[in-house]
């Protein structure tokens, strides 16, 4: 994907629309320098630079000369997010104002994120406006982040029919090829032969065989960072079939995989000094004569036996084999991302991923960088007293917490059993979807938590 939302910074266009971010406090200053005609226009429209507002201002010939857009101090990454779609098709824009490199880079990133459209199945008849790449901006970074996020959004938005386990693994192959990473794919029966029984069991009912993608990249001696993403390409619930309302959006149940793939792509493009590993268990949770059943018992890769309390708690099952494998090389940092529980949405709503972490320092870093990059996440506890809620009757664990409540916590406690002591681990329970459009975040598939994670990882492994 190329970033066609930007025009090369060498481009000079005298007709370019001037975009002027202005804070509520800075509006008076702008007004004092504006022409009488412009000032009147701004006053007439009651433009007060309140959040997410913008105002187009005409020149004498009736063309759009300037767009005043509300921003904050420091500037929100999403300040310009509405503009690419809102300004006239094909228009070229130029950012004006004195911004430092960080700020202008953030603004450009918001522009790119707001330019995203999913047009695989129909062409949009309106081309988004384009921005002359601000010369001060770190465009390499903007493109690495924005293109990775847009890739992830595409993966989530693509209907399950066209985004099965094979296609999801192909997406991993695509980023691996671009960065000369190594990729191993274990497919179907081979999952049993190579001892990934849980992934196979969950995925065996689909005519599209389950897979595990295992990608490695970077200096083998660098600190090991391992990402795991839940790739349930469609979740019917299995024999514990979901009702229509619950099943409708289940093409997004590989949102964790999409987020992990996006983060991996960023890490490789920005060449972070880590040895990266990406593990994506890719399955479809289907109904068939050979579907796994409630109260079946699976012996997992780690050897822990799991009783199936509910076939619709399948995400933690495929993750448990991947996490066990991830721990086999004792990574310095282990992160998994998953659209795992409805309880996490009840806990924090659609916009804020819940995360769990066995390392307080790491948790504090994650929260701080999430906040700093406007990619907020919120920590929930691995509450020890709830471990009894996931005990099996005939096996060591049950995959469905008995409750009452605390479904996101019991899912995390389940995963915790497959992470080795001493491995710094964070688990993200995300929505993977924007229920409504917001600036820079169009309705539909979304990659969550990873901009903050990228900054956290950059900070953690910054060379001295």
């Amino acid at each position: 994907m190329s970033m066609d939302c930007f025009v090369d910074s060498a481009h000079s266009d005298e007709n370019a629309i001037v975009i002027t971010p202005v804070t509520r406090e800075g509006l008076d200053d702008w007004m004092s320098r504006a022409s009488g005609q412009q000032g009147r226009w701004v006053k007439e429209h009651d433009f007060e630079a309140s959040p997410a507002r913008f105002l187009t201002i005409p020149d004498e010939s009736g063309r759009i000369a300037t767009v005043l857009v509300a921003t904050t101090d420091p500037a929100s990454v999403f300040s310009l997010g509405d503009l690419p779609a809102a300004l006239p098709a094909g228009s070229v824009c130029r950012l004006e104002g004195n911004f430092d490199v960080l700020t202008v880079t953030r603004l450009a990133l918001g522009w790119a994120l707001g330019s995203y459209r999913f047009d695989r199945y129909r062409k949009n008849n309106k081309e988004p406006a384009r921005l002359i790449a601000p010369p001060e901006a770190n465009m390499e970074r903007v493109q690495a982040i924005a293109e990775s996020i847009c890739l992830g959004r595409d993966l989530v938005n693509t209907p399950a029919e066209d985004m099965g386990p094979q296609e999801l693994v192909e997406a991993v192959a695509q980023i691996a090829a671009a960065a000369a990473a190594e990729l191993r794919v274990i497919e179907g029966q081979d999952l049993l032969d190579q001892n990934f029984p849980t992934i196979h069991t969950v995925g065996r009912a689909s005519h599209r065989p389950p897979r595990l993608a295992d990608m490695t990249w970077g200096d083998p001696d660098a600190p090991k960072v391992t990402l795991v993403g839940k790739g349930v390409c469609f979740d019917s619930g299995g024999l514990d079939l979901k009702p229509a309302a619950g099943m409708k959006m289940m093409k997004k149940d590989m949102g964790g995989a999409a987020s992990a793939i996006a983060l991996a792509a960023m890490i490789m493009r920005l060449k972070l000094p880590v040895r990266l590993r990406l593990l994506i268990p890719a399955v479809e949770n289907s109904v068939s004569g050979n579907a796994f059943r409630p109260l079946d018992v699976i012996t997992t890769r780690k050897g822990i036996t799991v009783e199936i309390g509910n076939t619709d708690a399948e995400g933690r099952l495929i993750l448990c084999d991947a996490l066990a494998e991830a721990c086999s090389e004792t990574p310095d940092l282990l992160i998994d991302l998953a659209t795992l529980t409805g309880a996490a949405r009840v806990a924090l709503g659609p916009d804020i991923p819940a995360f769990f972490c066995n390392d307080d320092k790491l948790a504090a870093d994650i929260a701080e960088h999430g906040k700093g990059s406007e990619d907020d996440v919120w920590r929930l506890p691995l509450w020890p007293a709830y471990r009894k809620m996931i005990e099996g009757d005939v096996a060591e664990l049950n995959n469905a917490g008995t409750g009452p409540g605390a479904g996101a916590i019991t899912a995390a406690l389940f995963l915790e059993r497959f992470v080795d002591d001493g491995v710094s681990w964070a688990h993200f329970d995300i929505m993977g979807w924007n229920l409504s459009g917001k600036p820079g975040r169009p309705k539909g598939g979304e990659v969550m938590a990873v901009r903050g994670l990228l900054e956290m990882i950059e900070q953690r492994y910054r060379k001295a």
Partner: protein
Amino acid sequence: MALPGFSETGDDAIPLVVIDKAGLSVWLDDQPARVATWLRRTGFDGETGSWRAIPAVDGDIAMVIAGRNEGDALWSLAGLPMGLPEGLVFALEAGVSGAEDICLGWACGSYAFDRYRPAKRQPASLAWPDGVDRAQVTAMGEAMALGRDLVNTPAENMGPLELAAAAQQLAEHNSAEVKVCVGESLLTEGYPAVHAVGRASSRIPRLIDLKWGGKGAPRVTLVGKGVCFDTGGLNLKNAAGMERMKKDMGGAACVLAVASMVMQRELPIQLRVLIPAVDNAVDGNALRPMDIVTTRKGLKIEIGDTDAEGRVVLADALAAAVEEEPDLVIDMATLTGAARVAMGPDLPACFGSDDALANELCDAGAAKDDPLWPFPLVGAYRGHMASDLADTNTIADLPFADHIQAALFLQQFVGETTPWLHIDTFCWNPSARPGRPKGGEIQGARAVFELLCRRYGKTSDD
């Protein structure tokens, strides 16, 4: 008043030895071989919460040994009062660490709700250990028992009148003043939302207003949700959801428990307790969905669901609380199912007007084995409660995070300037654990008391 489960004298008491798992073998080195044999044969390994009676040669109980993890003092021995034989007195070794926590756990574990039938048994007694602040333990233990009794009492016997009577009794005991605004007076004295929610019941609604403490001290106002029974109103709950709704005054029980601790321990604050006490009932005059209520603050609220009534009665109480600009307002409420879905039964959700304040409360709770978990007041979710006709709806158009939405709703009545904590609590033990019998529970009260002690000059261990 004597606290159940304690004995004034340790004469003839049976020794109670507390060990941690790692220390068991060292302890056994000094014991006769038959003690080690007995403990081994009966599978005692010093696990926290486990205990064994050790026989004397004549068959009497020579001593009791109990396992405890360091740092787990409160609950590790709390199963003993109802586990050891009744009628006997036990005595801790002199100088055992965490004796005061052990005593409070013992007090909580001695609790039984015996209003409707005699208790199955009496607790075994613990001789007051030397050096333990009996007044402190007694104040905490009595406050917990008071609160549990209020929650456990069936709604028929714990209506708005009886809840007010409980507050009056507590006030009398501590020389506090209490004023109760009853029925129609709620309309003339500016509590229209409390009246609107409670008007359908044959038991008229009330606003309880308790004041205690010297002028000039920092002002702390506690607000407790006192919905004595919550049918849901016209948006009637189903049977499963209605079953436990006698506990919907749990927030009121919690703030009365905190008030009891504060007054008994004479914390140097000016305390005010506000409790809207109502039944959420069904009747011809019941509040209806999409009715609009003008609240005390003047904000007009559209009733999205009559079963979101707690936030409505709290709205008036919080508005009244902030009028006198207290230093701190804390409300406690069994407010949302979402908080339980999110956190399960053990962890009340807490919200603060700033993150630091919420973290301060959570730290205080963690220090006192009364855990809470902080949640964010997510600004981006504010828009979901917009009303077509009024200033705000009472519920959100978003099927998620109702506890956050409820907290955002309440924040509108607190305003920007008053430091405020909101606790969304469960007040119920779905199953019994040591020191925490099944049924009504007072969650968050000890955390709040510890926070108040830390802020206002005394530690709760003083």
